[in-house]
């Protein structure tokens, strides 16, 4: 589903974020991206989101070479991906419902369909009774779950998360990770960047360890 082939990314500042990185993630697979801050985890996710372009190498997502994707095609490409951010990127000028509805509205879904899907997503993350609340009134864990609802509302084939448990206590973090695993179980390809090694080591999932822009370890830890 996601295939990095000797991908390098050098920022205009000269910082070499990724260095000839190759890896492959199958459809429906779930993996964790670990490593110190600055190891290239965020850059790797940004490349998949086409927020950045690789300096060298090929990046294939769902069989498509992203290097050949024109700028104007990026929005349509992004509609196949859901992203969860550490800082949620929620909009505080509208209700929880309207936040989750956003990916559907930009894709041109019918209002009736939007209502159905948004409530399904909110139900999935346990926030159905809070749809009318402003996200600012929600707790940290609830905000993160709302961010997840927004990431999955349009049923993406790929789900990316950058430090989704960054500000949460261990119990809430485990809850969030469990949510991600449920999406993986229904066939979504899930890639999560995290530094919460304790938590994920108990999950028995594939781990990709980055160091200075290189993949130094890949596999399910014993």
């Amino acid at each position, binding site marked *: 589903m996601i295939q990095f082939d000797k991908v390098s990314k050098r920022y205009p500042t000269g910082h070499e974020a990724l260095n000839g990185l190759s890896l492959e993630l199958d459809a429906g697979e779930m993996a964790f991206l670990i490593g110190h801050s600055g190891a290239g985890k965020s850059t790797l996710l940004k490349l998949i989101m086409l927020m950045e372009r690789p300096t060298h190498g090929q990046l294939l997502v769902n069989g498509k070479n992203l290097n050949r994707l024109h700028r104007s095609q990026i929005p349509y490409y*992004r*509609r196949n991906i859901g992203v969860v951010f550490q800082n949620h990127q929620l909009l505080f000028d509208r209700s929880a419902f309207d936040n989750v509805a*956003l990916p559907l509205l930009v894709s041109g879904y019918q209002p*009736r369909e939007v209502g159905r899907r*948004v*409530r399904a997503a909110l139900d999935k993350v346990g926030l159905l009774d809070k749809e009318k609340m402003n996200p600012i009134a929600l707790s940290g864990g609830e905000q993160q779950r709302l961010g997840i609802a927004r990431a999955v509302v349009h049923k993406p*084939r790929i789900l990316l998360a950058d430090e989704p448990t960054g500000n949460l206590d261990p119990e809430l973090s485990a809850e969030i990770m469990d949510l991600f695993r449920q999406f993986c179980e*229904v066939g979504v390809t899930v890639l999560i960047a995290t530094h919460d090694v304790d938590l994920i080591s108990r999950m028995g999932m594939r781990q990709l360890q980055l160091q200075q822009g290189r993949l130094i370890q890949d596999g399910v830890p014993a």
Partner: protein
Amino acid sequence: MNRYRRGKPEKMMVSNSRGGKSAKEPRRGASGGRVSLLGKLRSYLQSHRHLFFSTVKRLASEPIQTLMTSLVVAIALGLPAVLYVGVVNLQQLGSRVETTTQITVFLKIDSSQKAIEQFQKNLISEADVDTVEYISRQQALEEFRILSGFGDVLDMLDENPLPPVFIVQPVAHFQRDLVASEVLVAKLKGMALVDDVQLDMKWMQRLQAMLVIGERFALSLGLALALGVLLIIGNTIRLAIESRRDEIVVVKLVGGTNAYVRRPFLYTGIWYGVIGGILAWVLVAVGVQWISGPVARLAELYQSLFELMGLGFFGLIVLLLIGASLGLIGAWLAVARHISSIEPK
């Protein structure tokens, strides 16, 4: 929220949706195209209808800002509109005056009464002449005494210095035909009894020339102010874009196209122009109403039926169209420069 019909939430991702695909399930593919073409068109129109109202709501939620921008637009649109109204009214006045175009014929001061009577007969029989009015030397003197206030001075003179005068009204088709009038004047000048002939059309020509200048002036002022409107609306939209930067980033992250991001701002620009146009029309209407009283009194003094003309319904439509177009263009200029530069980082 009530845009969305409340329904039972669909059970999410219980089965692998890529497995059994029901007919109702939108088509999935890597390059989008999840919604049918007809559905896309429908939701496109729906989103426009939604934007139509939601942008108004947003403007109404910031009444001061909206009013200020719209007022500036209104003043910029109103100024050339006022000039236009002025020119149109003067033209109207001009066309009324034209119908009273007259030729004043001064006879030689020592013309005999008999010769004058004969001359009057000749004039009336002239094909190009409609009516003839005779003002004798004595009548002229009386009139002058009353109107000028120099009665005492006249008394000091031994002799009446004023010549006998005929006021000649040419036939209707001469009214607009300057050349034909000139020919008539030349003919009258050639007559033995005639001392001088004045065609009271010269000032009409001057008025026409001035009106052309006025028209040009209104147009150039209008163009300059239109540029001003573009800048005002462009700047307001730029600020609106800046204040919604977070939202734009998120919309782009979830797959919103530039066109999608642009649309609400374009609508907002159009609204500023439309509201400005309406306000401009109201301003001009109030102004016209305000001076129409004094103008009517002035017209009365001149025994004229002249009535001040406002912009009317047609003027409102034109102002709305101009306002909306300028709003759209101004917003487009701002949007084109700023939205593509806002990218998620």
